[in-house]
């Protein structure tokens, strides 16, 4: 059963182009120039009910624009979309009862009031009766461990706590599909992991279809089963996470700092930067296991700081283009809108 289907979904924004400075402003006043910016170019995708899909790409790739067309916020320029069999524009209100959404940059909680007040208002908006509300509210408070946060004004919550409340708020009406747009943006490692665990649990226990956008490769590896990579408004890759991990996510980046001058010379790794006290190396886990490399680095001297991170998404996309003989396209100037 399909949860989402799009057919050549396209969004073009018409933006004003103006030379810099006063002369440019005056000239634009009399002879305005416009440019069409393709935020999304003919995307075809299908998502099954209960699926956990990562929809990822660099900034300005068209992720948020796609989500906004799927939820009825934006009108597509051409093409069509259905979510749970409904047209998001024509049946916006009907669809709103069945979907939930969290936009990392836009809060649906009132800044000056405690989350429980916003939950109560949202219950009214989604027309939950008292019994339904109490039952659902209790379950979400337990699942998201919100007990201590409920009476604290939102402005006093940490970002991670606020995101937990945001996700819980978007689940009050038991949506069948939830759109999560950059839910882990700005979070520290621990908070990110907690949010990822909650999303996975939500899918497992309630069968909710998850449509997750992110520019963090870690989000996909730990939560999703399928990944669609989008760049410049086009689908670059549509694969299982297993395949992606095998083909493109084998590279880890280790940054290490020593207390004393240390020469980092380890076989089977690529050094991308080195100074007297620090080094940044790239490890292909297919060539050398990560724990071996870390152990060797620790053995070279007294380590004061070490971080292990995924390869940036831009590099993964560049790798995909290279494999397909379209090297360099990932480095094109950003035509996205960041909307």
């Amino acid at each position, binding site marked *: 059963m399909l949860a989402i289907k799009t057919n050549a979904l396209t969004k073009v*924004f018409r933006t004003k182009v103006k030379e810099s400075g006063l002369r440019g402003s005056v000239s634009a006043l009399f002879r305005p120039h416009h440019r069409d910016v393709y935020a999304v170019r003919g995307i075809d995708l299908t998502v099954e009910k209960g699926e956990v899909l990562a929809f990822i790409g660099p900034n300005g790739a068209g992720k*948020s*624009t796609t989500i*906004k067309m799927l*939820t*009825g*916020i*934006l*009108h597509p320029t051409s093409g069509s979309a259905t979510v749970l069999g409904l047209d998001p524009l024509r049946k*916006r*209100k*009907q669809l*709103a*009862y069945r979907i939930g*959404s969290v*936009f990392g*940059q*836009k*809060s*649906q*909680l*009132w*800044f*000056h*009031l405690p989350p429980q*007040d916003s939950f109560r*208002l949202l219950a*009214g*908006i*989604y*027309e939950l009766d008292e019994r339904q509300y109490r039952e659902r509210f209790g379950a979400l408070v337990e699942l998201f461990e919100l007990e201590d946060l409920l009476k604290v*004004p*939102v402005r006093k919550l940490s970002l991670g706590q606020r995101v937990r409340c945001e996700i819980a708020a978007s689940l009050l009406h038991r949506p069948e599909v939830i759109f999560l747009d950059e839910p882990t943006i700005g979070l520290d490692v621990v908070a990110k992991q907690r949010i990822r665990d909650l999303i996975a649990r939500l899918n497992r226990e309630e069968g909710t279809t998850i449509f997750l956008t992110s520019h963090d490769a870690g989000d996909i590896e730990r939560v999703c089963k399928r990944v669609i990579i989008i760049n410049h408004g086009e689908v670059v890759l549509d694969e299982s996470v297993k395949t992606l991990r095998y083909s493109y996510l084998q590279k880890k980046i280790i940054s290490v700092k020593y207390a004393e001058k240390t020469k980092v010379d380890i076989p089977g790794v690529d050094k991308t930067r080195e100074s007297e006290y620090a080094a940044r190396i790239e490890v292909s886990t297919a060539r050398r296991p990560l724990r071996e490399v870390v152990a060797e680095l620790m053995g070279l001297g007294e380590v004061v700081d070490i971080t292990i991170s995924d390869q940036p998404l831009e590099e993964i996309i560049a790798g995909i283009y290279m494999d397909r003989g379209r090297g360099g396209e990932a480095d094109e100037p950003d035509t996205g809108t*960041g*909307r």
Partner: protein
Amino acid sequence: MSTAVDAIRKHARLFAAYFRFNLAAVMEYRASFLMQVFGMAINNASFIFFWKIVYLRVPAVAGYEFRDVMFLWALSAAAFGVAHVCFGNCGSLGRVIIQGELDPYLLQPKDVYFNVICSKTIVSAWGDTAYGIILYLLVYGFAPGRFALFLGFVALGGLLIASARFAAETLTFFLGNASAISRLLTEFMISFSLYPEKIFGNSVRWMMYSLAPAGFVVFVPHRIYRSLTLASLPLLLVADVVYLFLGYMLFRAGLKRYESGNLVVTRV
């Protein structure tokens, strides 16, 4: 029919929920709330002295006595206050559109127009409302029938002011930024509604009954109140419905042009 009644009931419930919610939100900062309310009331009251001085020299201005001018002040302040207490977003829709803040409303299963307009309250407008009602009671005293009529005018006037401002702000969808037009409309409406009708020329009076409908906010109610004949009352209802409909249709057409945005937004 039952579907329409059901829809009206649901939206009335939403309106009541927002009203309670917004009141709770402004009460979070009690000192600021009280200062803004009393500050606005005192600011408005200062103009009474100006008019008192004028009427010490002349018995009437363009057929209006002191009590008549006070009626205009009381009604326009209370109506302006109610418009912004109940429909706080009527004057900020342009900013909401430009900054992409319509997204949360579009994601909720409610009429977007209604949802946006009543989801906010303006704190100082409580002061305008209180001032208008107190001024009326001080000048005219408490006669239940007349007071109810006055409150009816306040409600209709508030709805008209909110609808007119909202319609002007909606032009942002088409012009890119309509805040200057909206500001101009508001200033016209306030200026027109605070002085005796006949001091204005014909062209201005034409505007008062069309583009900047101050005539329907204060002058028609004033005539009804003075003569106590309700024949013109339907005119007020028609004016409200016309502006409400105009704003609604403009908004619906404009939504197709909405471009959202990526600004970090919190709801306050």
